[in-house]
């Protein structure tokens, strides 16, 4: 009961980040995208060594700097100064994308605008909106062993983001393995989307109501435990 109450008080983004952090394992090499994904770093369990990669050429990203530690030559992919940790290494962008595209990342966590029944992902641009680039997103989804999408379940207007078929410009075809929202954990399988976990107090029907794609409820449906 107390745990459910604590979970309810939490900001949705924090809920998502905390649940995604549970997918981490000691010794994983992970790329965390801008937005909710990068918050996952704050919830990696004490003592678990997960090596975070920045696409601009760094492995072993440390915390944000104290004011006297700020170094403009030491930034993450969001262009914010960060710090080193024991084991940090620097390398070229070419080597970075060798790691990314060459299947060396254990997990990549990205935000999403739309994910569909086949695991297609749209997360880089909206037609008609202002000019946007793609950065490393398309490479990240093409190479990672596991792609987790960390996103809120619906748009600001309450529209489903987990859809039958993506209508927004795609980032990658059939690339998503797991979707984590504040309401649910959904696995992408060759047979379609499987609802594996629901947030405390949330029913599968409630999740299906705000999901356009058909969800098959797992036999051993669990409750998200943060």
């Amino acid at each position, binding site marked *: 009961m107390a745990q459910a109450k604590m979970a309810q008080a939490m900001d949705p983004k924090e809920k998502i980040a905390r649940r995604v952090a549970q997918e981490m394992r000691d010794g994983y090499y992970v790329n965390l995208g801008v937005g909710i994904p990068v918050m996952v770093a704050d919830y990696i369990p004490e003592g678990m060594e997960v090596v975070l990669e920045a696409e601009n050429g760094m492995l072993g990203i440390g915390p944000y700097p104290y004011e006297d530690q700020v170094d403009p030559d030491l930034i993450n992919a969001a262009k914010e100064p960060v710090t080193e940790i024991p084991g940090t290494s620097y390398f070229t*962008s070419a080597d970075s*994308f060798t790691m990314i595209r060459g299947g060396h990342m254990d997990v990549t966590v990205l935000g999403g605008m739309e994910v569909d029944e086949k695991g297609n992902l749209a997360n880089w641009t909206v037609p008609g909106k202002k000019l946007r*680039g793609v950065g490393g997103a398309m490479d990240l989804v093409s190479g990672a062993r596991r792609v987790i999408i960390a996103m809120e379940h619906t748009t600001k207007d309450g529209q489903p983001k987990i859809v039958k078929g993506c209508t927004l410009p795609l980032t990658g075809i059939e690339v998503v393995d797991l979707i984590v929202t504040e309401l649910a954990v959904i696995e992408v399988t060759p047979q379609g989307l499987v609802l594996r976990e629901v947030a405390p107090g949330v029913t599968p029907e409630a999740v299906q109501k705000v999901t356009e794609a058909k969800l098959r409820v797992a036999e051993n449906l669990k409750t998200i435990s943060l």
Partner: protein
Amino acid sequence: MDKRVANADTAIEKVTDGATILMGGFGTCGNPENLIAAVMRKGLKNLTCVSNNVGMADFGLGLLVSEGRVKKLICSFPGLNKSCEQRVLNGEVEIEINPQGTLVERLRAGGAGIPAFYTPTAVGTVLAEGKEVREFDGQKYLLERALRGNFAFIKAWKGDRWGNLVYRKTARNFHPTMATAADYVIAEVEELVELGSLDPDSIHTPGIFVDAIFQGTKYEKKIEKLVLRKRA
């Protein structure tokens, strides 16, 4: 052999209107600040610039774009640069978006004598339009062409008169690759050191790739976004 030149203005004597210039840097990190400022001063225009980002409107490449000096941009993420957006949407500046990994691999190929290569990145997306697709071992790949420049503007931390270069932290990014992929490569360094003082095991760009080198001055090293950790 002495590749040293006096300054950025001397270094860009060969650069003319319409040139294709590779510019290293990730956001405002590791920008060849002196060279870009020299291009501004010289009044060069109709440039094609290859750079991961365009950065801030009033700094570096963003400034060249705002000032109407750039005809075409090849980049992966133009960035939150309103002036750049305006010129592109008006049709004044042509823009070609490449996925970041594809961009750097095109440059690597361009420097390595590889005319084209296949990548899984962007298959099935709008960036695959017009590109050949081929299947290998049951997976689809896009054919991408090598990319080279007339000039490359490289920013490094230290260098010597042979053009050997060492970079610092994440200011390295695209520079080592771009240094291989242009007809004339200019390096600006924070410190020019004696030949022999750089540890051979630690040289990031062997001087063979570099044509001219000078010691830069007054680096601004802008920070785009600052998040500080609070002391307890």
